[in-house]
């Protein structure tokens, strides 16, 4: 099979048409020494040999299917029901580009509509868009929405220091050039009351994460009113873990203006960091300032249900140079995976998963707390992740865990010193439904061995 459709004769005709001798001449302006550098590649391998080589390399890695894992920090190891991969692998859905043309894409559009509806249910909000690249970019878009709601007249953004450090970076990156004043600092012991004091009538929004980067849950009751009153309707944006909403009251019930988060826990594998899924839900009065796109349900001229792209108000094809968002698509396949996951689990299944996460994490916290030298930080209630004060630097402990017990390797938690210099010797431990009691006991045993 020839993958390049042009014949030599056609190429020659094209070159003649533009008056060029050969293809190399098209690259005349690239210095010669950069044009065809020797690559020193090994000889080519057959498909069989290539796969064997890659398999060998892959097996040198630890993988989270077979290794007890306590690493989270924004990406979580959850069980993905087989039906998820089955549905998203179907030829009708499995494309590199999300097709939106209503005449030929009713299946895709309906799936996006179902996704949006489920996210609205989960978050308690009026309207959800078709999705973003990941939780971080969704959070940044929420900031830009708030900025646009106030017609770019308010430039202060309060970001809680316990918002995921990567999200805070992406917020900075996305808002470069807008001359925003982003406040909130990076001291994780800052209280909610102190944060709210930063809000004034020049504040576009306050962003809080719950469960936050350190796993802590924050009581949202009364916060929206306090922020709205102090900030003259400044927006309240909440970043959340969708699995936690199986157990907790949705942020929408607390008067939050926008709810965003990372959708990876909803049926997406860890995937070496992506592709992930940013979910985004807001109040209907802000729909014009919302980034991304909305798929809606309508009826055709015969009265039959149909799905169409309804709104793309901030995108380049509609606003051209006035566009306020660079997303002109969605994470179609990942949104589909999340939809299948939520449909497969249902309300009760999601609650069960959330409960398992909560209870196993609390069992693990007890077990770890009982180890001499290790203590769990209990400033706030937590969901499936918590901070452990350790008797040594976390990277040392993590290295030990890979070799602590005979024949068992354990992937330890996240080293918080990377992001919070004053949290030296603090490990962020994540526990999901995937961690068996046996695994948790192994971790506690390994910590014990470390102290001995």
């Amino acid at each position, binding site marked *: 099979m020839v993958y390049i459709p042009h014949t030599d004769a056609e190429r020659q005709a094209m070159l003649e048409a533009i008056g060029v001798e050969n293809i190399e001449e098209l690259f005349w302006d690239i210095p010669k020494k950069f044009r065809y550098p020797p690559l020193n590649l090994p000889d080519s391998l057959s498909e069989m040999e290539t796969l064997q080589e890659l398999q060998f390399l892959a097996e040198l890695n630890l993988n989270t299917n077979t290794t007890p894992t306590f690493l989270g920090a924004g990406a979580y190891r959850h069980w993905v029901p087989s039906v998820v991969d089955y549905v998203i692998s179907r030829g009708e859905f499995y494309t590199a580009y999300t097709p939106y043309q209503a005449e030929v894409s009713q299946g895709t559009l309906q799936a996006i509509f179902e996704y949006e509806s489920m996210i609205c249910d989960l978050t308690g909000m009026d309207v959800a868009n078709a999705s973003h690249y990941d939780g971080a970019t969704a959070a940044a878009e929420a900031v830009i929405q708030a900025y646009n709601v106030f017609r770019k007249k308010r430039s202060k953004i309060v970001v809680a220091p316990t918002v995921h450090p990567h999200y805070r970076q992406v917020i900075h990156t996305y808002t470069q050039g807008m001359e925003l004043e982003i406040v909130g600092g990076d001291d994780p012991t800052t209280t909610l009351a102190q944060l709210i004091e930063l809000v004034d009538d020049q504040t576009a929004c306050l962003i809080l994460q719950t469960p936050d980067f350190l796993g802590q849950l924050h009581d949202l009751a009364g916060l929206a009113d306090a922020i709205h009153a102090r900030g003259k309707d400044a927006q309240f944006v909440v970043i959340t873990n969708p699995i936690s909403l199986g157990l907790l009251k949705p942020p929408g019930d607390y008067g939050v203006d926008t709810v965003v988060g990372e959708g990876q826990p909803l049926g997406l594998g860890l995937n070496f960091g992506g592709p992930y899924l940013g979910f985004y839900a807001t109040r209907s009065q802000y729909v014009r300032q919302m980034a991304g796109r909305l798929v809606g349900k309508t009826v055709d001229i015969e009265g039959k249900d149909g799905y169409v792209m309804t709104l793309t*108000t901030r995108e380049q094809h*509609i606003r051209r140079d006035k566009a306020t968002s660079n997303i002109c698509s969605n994470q179609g396949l990942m949104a589909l995976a999340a939809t299948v996951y939520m449909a497969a689990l249902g309300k009760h299944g999601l609650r069960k998963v959330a409960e398992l996460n909560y209870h196993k994490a609390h069992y693990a916290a007890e077990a770890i707390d009982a180890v001499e030298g290790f203590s769990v930080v209990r400033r706030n209630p937590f969901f499936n992740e918590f901070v452990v004060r350790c008797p040594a630097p976390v990277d040392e402990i993590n290295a030990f865990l890979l070799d602590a017990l005979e024949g068992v390797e354990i992937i330890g938690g996240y080293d918080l010193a990377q992001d919070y210099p004053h949290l030296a010797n603090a490990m962020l431990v994540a526990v999901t439904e995937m961690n068996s009691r046996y695994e948790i006991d192994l971790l506690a045993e390994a910590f014990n061995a470390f102290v001995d």
Partner: protein
Amino acid sequence: MNLDTSVRYLETHEWARKEGDEVVIGITDYAQSTLSDIVYVELPEVGDTLNKGDQFGVVESVKAAADVYIPMSGKVVAVNTALEDAPEAVNEDAFGEGWMLRISPANPAQWDELLDAAAYQKVVDEEEAAGA
């Protein structure tokens, strides 16, 4: 195409009508018919100060989103909030119910720089001819 002879025009298809010391502004009937069904009108806030030629909002139709420009400098004293829920008023009555904002002009002499109905008709005719 409807032309209102009591208002003045801007080449970019906005109109202005004197009402006492204030000026009411909207888009022309020709503009609305070119845009077709209007689904959203974004307007400035009362109290905003705009200079002649500044963009004062966006009119979004099922076909396109068009920026709209202010014919005279001034301070916004009122906007047509009814368009939030009923943007189709611009299609139905561009020179009346479909008005967009009311300003207190900073420089009333700018009125004389605007086109009268006949001059605006010429602008439209030329655009039509170029389009055809």
